[in-house]
């Protein structure tokens, strides 16, 4: 009998099936790896296990008895602890305070600091992080050390099942090695571990069993080591195609300098040595698993990150872009469609008209006064061009549907006729119809001479929309795929960094168009 099992579990979000009829069985004293590409249902699965969301259908059993968790606290009480990617630590409190935050040891009603410190030291030692001082403030620790504290915090709750959701992605090499030892020891102590990682070599090193998810289904469970990497990739792909993409015109080679050229762009430890060339009329995709530095690359190009090194050239001339205001200047003409339209893209309570005009106000005004007539004409043109479905341009942007909000975000930047368009996963959470319109629009803009750099978590889009795709892994471009080479299989295997050719060779090719 399994320690914990899920049978036939399904979950829908609106019209999207995130998980359908998924099965998984977890054994004590084993490390169970969960694999799958973006949106395969991994996150939904563990959120259900951890009590963050409730399943629509299916049953869960713990020690053979059916269970249901109403909250993360309930899952905790049942012995399931989860280490999420988003850190749940409180920056201004000490490490010891954080480790015992949900239930501090008390004496006479007050927190017993000595007992708390002992517990913290014990938990840190179990997590292999005894060199973190329990009195250190979390905000003074590096990301890697914080992640170690996060692991210690989970262990302090004495769980029977420990879920690690890409818990190693922020760790330094030294901490990763320690964590391997710790996880193996925990396994020997009889804990069940669920391990989600996109690093195949970690899975090879640690896992006893693997379950592969695809399209919200658990497609295969096998003992670790019984399948080759290629067979695993084969299991992970196979998404149904349901979108129609505009044709990609053949682009005549030209002698013009690239619209945007990036050489050896580096930022802290999140971006390393990024080089790319974007020509007028080209749509370049950014691929890879979520969180490999794609977002940072777009922000760096837009001038939001400080302390970047490397060179950026526009039309062959080196430029230093100091921020969004500089990026939208006529001679650069760069626009970024951000990831989160609600916080970074729109002022929700303000009208559609105001939202559309913001980025182009300086072009629509004379002597600092907005020219109302010019504004109205420009706004009307964009609303028609994008077919924004709205009850007039005076309704607040927040009243529009997700797809139409996204159109407003894009329309805002089209008002200033950008030459370089950076998009950060623009189709996430919008309906199929709007997606189609978006694909047509991107291609139309490119045909009119814009250069487009397009990050997407949806591999379909990368295959269907892009002339070239740059695949990122750990803050670097590891592979470039061109034309017919852009296939889902190639995208998945390079996203997992399983490419056979050395990465350096492909980037060198990329520099010679």
């Amino acid at each position, binding site marked *: 009998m399994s320690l914990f099992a899920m049978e036939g579990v399904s979950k829908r979000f609106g019209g999207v099936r995130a998980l359908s009829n998924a099965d998984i069985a977890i054994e004590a004293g084993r490390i169970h790896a969960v694999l799958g590409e973006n949106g395969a249902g991994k996150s939904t699965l563990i959120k259900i296990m951890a009590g963050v969301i409730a399943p629509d259908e299916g049953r869960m059993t713990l020690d053979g008895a059916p269970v249901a968790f109403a909250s993360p606290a309930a899952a905790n009480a049942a012995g399931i602890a989860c280490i999420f990617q988003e850190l749940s*630590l*409180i*920056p*201004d409190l000490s490490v010891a305070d954080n480790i015992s*935050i949900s239930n501090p040891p008390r004496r006479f009603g*007050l927190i017993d600091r000595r007992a708390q410190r002992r517990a913290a030291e014990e938990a840190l030692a179990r997590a292999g992080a005894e060199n973190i001082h329990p*009195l250190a403030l979390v905000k003074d620790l590096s990301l890697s050390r914080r992640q170690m504290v996060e692991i210690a915090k989970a262990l302090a709750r004495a769980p029977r099942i420990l879920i690690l959701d890409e818990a190693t992605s922020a760790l330094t090499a030294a901490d990763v090695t320690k964590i391997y030892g710790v996880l193996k020891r925990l396994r020997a102590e009889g804990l069940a571990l669920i391990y989600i990682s996109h690093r195949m070599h970690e899975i090879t090193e640690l896992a006893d069993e693997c379950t592969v998810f695809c399209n919200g289904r658990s497609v295969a469970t096998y003992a670790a080591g019984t399948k080759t990497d290629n067979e695993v990739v084969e299991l992970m792909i196979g998404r149904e195609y349901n979108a129609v993409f505009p044709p990609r015109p053949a682009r005549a080679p030209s002698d013009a300098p690239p619209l945007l050229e990036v050489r050896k762009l580096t930022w802290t430890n999140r971006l390393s040595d990024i080089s790319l060339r974007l020509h007028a009329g080209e749509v370049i995709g950014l691929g890879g698993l979520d969180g490999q530095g794609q977002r940072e690359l777009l922000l760096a190009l837009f001038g939001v990150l400080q302390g970047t090194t490397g060179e950026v050239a526009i039309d062959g001339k080196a430029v230093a872009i100091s921020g969004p205001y500089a990026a939208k200047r006529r001679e650069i003409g760069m626009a970024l469609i951000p990831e989160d339209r609600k916080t970074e893209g729109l002022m929700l309570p303000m009208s559609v008209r105001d939202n559309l005009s913001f980025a182009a106000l300086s072009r629509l005004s004379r002597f600092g006064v907005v020219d109302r007539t010019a504004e109205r004409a420009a706004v009307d043109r964009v609303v028609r061009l994008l077919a924004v479905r709205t009850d007039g341009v005076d309704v607040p942007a927040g009243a529009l549907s997700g797809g139409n909000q996204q159109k407003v975000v894009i329309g805002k930047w089209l008002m200033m006729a950008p030459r370089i368009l950076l998009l950060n996963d623009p189709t996430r959470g919008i309906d199929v119809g709007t997606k189609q319109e978006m694909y047509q629009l991107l291609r139309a803009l490119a045909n009119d001479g814009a250069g487009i750099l397009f990050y997407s978590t949806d591999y379909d889009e990368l295959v269907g929309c892009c002339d070239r795709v740059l695949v990122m892994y750990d803050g670097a471009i590891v592979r470039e795929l061109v034309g017919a080479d852009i296939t889902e299989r190639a995208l998945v295997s390079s996203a997992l960094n399983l490419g056979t050719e050395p990465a350096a060779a492909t980037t060198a090719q990329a520099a010679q168009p």
Partner: protein
Amino acid sequence: MSGDWSYWLREHRGTLLAFAAFVAMFAVYAANHPAGLNANVATTAANKGVLLAIVAMAQTVVVLTSGIDLSVGMVMVLANCLASTIVVGSPAATALGVVGVLATGCLCGAVNGVIVIYGRLQPIVTTIATGSVFYGAALALRRVPGGDIDSTLADALTGQLPGGIPASLVLLAALVVTVWMPFRRSALGRAAYAVGSSEVAAYMSGVPIRRAKFAAYMLSGLLASMAGLFLTCVTYSGEASAANGGSYTLYSIAAVVLGGISLFGGSGSAIGAIFGALMFRTIGDLLFVFNVEPLWQPLFQGVVLVAAVCLGSLRLLRIRNRLDLYG
């Protein structure tokens, strides 16, 4: 473990800086006072300082949760008017009056808390509105200044102990030991810091967010009413003074900033705010001993405040992702 002290220093840096700055300022003041530092000079200075210090403590507990309480001054004024009415008569009646004043303070804080937590209104708007209501109640109690307070109690709190120690300082120390320290060391106090530092992380960690906020607002009301009681002991009367209420509210925020408490919440200590308050008072006294016209006082207090805020924002220079500036 060795090296504990360095972490202790790190955690209490703001408080220690406020303490050091106050000691330096006060030393200059005492050395230059025409009459020297005698017991009477110290007692007068202490009474003024302690009043603001208690209001600053009230402000601190709310600021720690990344809220703000703009009604502290008005709660103080209301408590002042109430105390000048009910803290009189026989010892038993006086004691009952004190309890009544403090209970009223708790009630005011609880009202703020309920509106902020369950009404989900911004603390700044809520407390401006409730502050106005509290002031209205104070005005209803005392249309014209007047009233009285039990003189034994008043003299005991504002006079000197044997040896010339100002009694008000002992009162302040007692408040720290009996109110602030237990709060800081309780699970609820920890939760208040957690909420102020990162509400999302606190929620994900199963911290009782609502209870922590409620406790903070209620404690703020309680401390503000103690300040009102103390004010009555100093003045022997009650006065529904809008100017007093408004300026004490603003000064309390100044004291909190000078005391090294982050207005974003989550870090700092009421002890820092106490020294911030004493420092703020000493600025005025310093100008007096150096024969500067009192008219300059607000200007100098403002300059010191701006300098303190600048010190507090030095960390922003280290930000690598500009989006973090606006997050």
